[in-house]
């Protein structure tokens, strides 16, 4: 299987769509737009996984695709949106670095993923190699988002996007026991629940979600009577 054949090209297109949406996530400045982009990424991911299920003839992947669609494209974005609306969180997201440098770093990370994966997987099939390269790029971009966002919601979105990359990798791994996909889905739900809980608690204590506030609080509290409170 290679270029010019429909199954391969379609898988490429969908995985490329997930990666493209990672870049979209990287430059969003508004919380609502960020959540919308995450939902779109979840939907494209579900299509990519379903396509893999059809190409590889693994019906179990349809379940994964459905789980990804329900959790990533519907439930989690709705939950995050609800949080934002209910608490009137600030709509603009501050990033630690500008759009330009962020994009350049993103491109650099994708190049890194390709440089690492392609030589390392010369024994594997083309679909597996390309799939792994896409998955790793999405994961690295998710990590970059987590590093560059100061906002709690931004960090959660980065983590969820990173996990989209994981699901993409799991879907490409033909014949792995279902335990991996189930675990991935369970992980997403658990993380979202716990993250939502923290978001609430943070909201209680900081009246805002800007973790930049915490930077001077490095955990080393000054001895009493010394330094700022």
């Amino acid at each position, binding site marked *: 299987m290679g270029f010019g054949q429909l199954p391969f090209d379609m898988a490429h297109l969908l995985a490329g769509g997930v990666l493209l949406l990672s870049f979209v996530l990287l430059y969003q400045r508004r919380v609502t737009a960020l959540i919308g982009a995450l939902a779109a990424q979840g939907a494209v991911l579900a299509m990519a996984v379903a396509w893999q299920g059809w190409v590889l003839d693994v019906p179990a992947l349809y379940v994964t695709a459905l789980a990804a669609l329900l959790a990533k494209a519907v439930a989690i974005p709705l939950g995050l949106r609800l949080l934002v609306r209910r608490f009137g969180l600030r709509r603009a997201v501050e990033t630690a670095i500008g759009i330009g440098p962020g994009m350049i770093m993103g491109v650099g990370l994708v190049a890194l993923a390709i440089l*690492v*994966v392609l*030589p*390392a*997987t*010369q*024994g*594997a099939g083309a679909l*597996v190699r390309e799939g*792994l390269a896409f*998955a*790793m790029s999405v*994961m690295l971009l998710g*990590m970059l988002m*987590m590093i560059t966002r100061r906002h*709690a919601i931004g*960090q959660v979105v980065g*983590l969820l996007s*990173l*996990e989209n*990359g*994981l699901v993409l*990798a*799991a879907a490409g*791994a*033909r*014949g*792995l*026991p279902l*335990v*991996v996909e189930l*675990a*991935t889905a369970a*992980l997403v739900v*658990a*993380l979202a629940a*716990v*993250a939502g*809980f*923290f978001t609430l*608690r*943070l909201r209680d*204590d*900081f009246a805002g979600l800007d*973790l930049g506030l*915490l930077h001077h*609080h490095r*955990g*080393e*509290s*000054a*001895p009493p009577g010394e330094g700022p409170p």
Partner: protein
Amino acid sequence: MNEALAMLIPTLPGLLVALPVIGGVALAAIPSPRLAAMLNIALAAAGFALALALAALPFGVNGWLHTDALNLPLLLLGALVGLTTACFSAATLPREGFTPVTGRAFHAAFQIFLGAHHLALLAENLGLTWVAIETATLASVLMVALHRGRAAIEAAWKFLILGGLGIALALFGTIVLGLAAQPVLGGEASLSFTALRGVAAQADGGLLSLAFVFLLVGYGTKAGLVPLHSWLPDAHAEGPVAMSAVLSGLLLNAALHAILRAKAVVGLNPATLSPGALLLGMGLLSLLVAAISLWRRRDARRFFAWSSIEHIGLAAIGFGLGGAASVAGMLHLLGHSLVKSAIFFTLGQAGRRQLAELAGLAPARAWIGWPLVVAMLAIAGLPPFSLFASEFLLVQQSAARLPWLVVPLAIGLLVAALALLRQVHAIALGPAAPSAEHAPPTAGAVVPAWLAPWLAMVPVHLHLLLALLLGLALPPALYAMLVEAGRIAG
């Protein structure tokens, strides 16, 4: 009767995992703190008894679980530390200031954490190991988040985000490992440790290297190895004290054990990056960073958390070197867990946060202060405790095999030991800190007042005694097991 016993034996490992998990769910439903604390101790004691029973049985694979020389010593240690921590926590429950709801959450999370830890060690399938470590992480995040206030929430947030990142990377590594083995296995791919070891030599070296790098960084986050360690000091300092003891005593070991399993698979293939060298590099970096950081701490629990990073780094260096140094690594893990949880028990009773406030503790409150001094000497690597034996073996091995390594290793060991000895000096001989003595809160105590100090201090003495025994007179059977463990880890 014998037949019934014979039927019971294969269920033992599963029971060891299921008991704490079911118990944890039950504990979440028990409103009485006294009953919950007692049940917590009973469950931990039952777990320890099961682990002892498991040690008496021959090694073997049993469905999804297995025992071998690598996981059994760590399992026994984990069950023991679980039991002593449950006793300590019952004795000092009023100090944590839990509300009824957070108290229930604490006991439930504690038992689920223990169950997940046992599962992480016993799992024969690397996918199952991953699920277990994930569960242990979520349970410990919950425990860190129990205290209110800015610092506790920041600590839990950091733990959640970095832990989530680490666990995601580890899953990616696990998937790539399965992908690498799949063409050789054919058909039904498997993440079974035995099956992976069987095919590792023929699998694609590039994919195996990629998998190991992700597993190392991913589980390394949990183990507190340096690039992604920054959650660890905060989590130790802001959660309940019992939680600090099991984090240092159990979670770090379980995560390092997962790395060793991956190393045992990947190391069989000659065409990969050397997994030992990668592990050694991360261990050395952790040792040096932690040794320097120890000099800049003011918060007592953060100070000892950094010391945990140092010791996990040392164990990683041992396993990275391999051979006889792996034995040093295993012994180091055992000794460190025992002594470090003893230290957290004494700190919990001293009830002071800052290192400066601990000055003069030994003369003022000998009951707590002197055991703390002895434990700190042990953790600094002074004889006759087992940490001295393992560090000595480690230095000797590196001198024999990688002479250049001795210089950074010795520098790290000395800088860290001096930082500890400086604090020991202040605690043992220094003038008493000006902080006002105040009696610990007793409202909501779950054990009688006369019993509480005993219940809290006996674990400390027991741990120190065991660390002494490991250092002076390692039983030959245990030594043989550690050698075998070193062989499995490669």
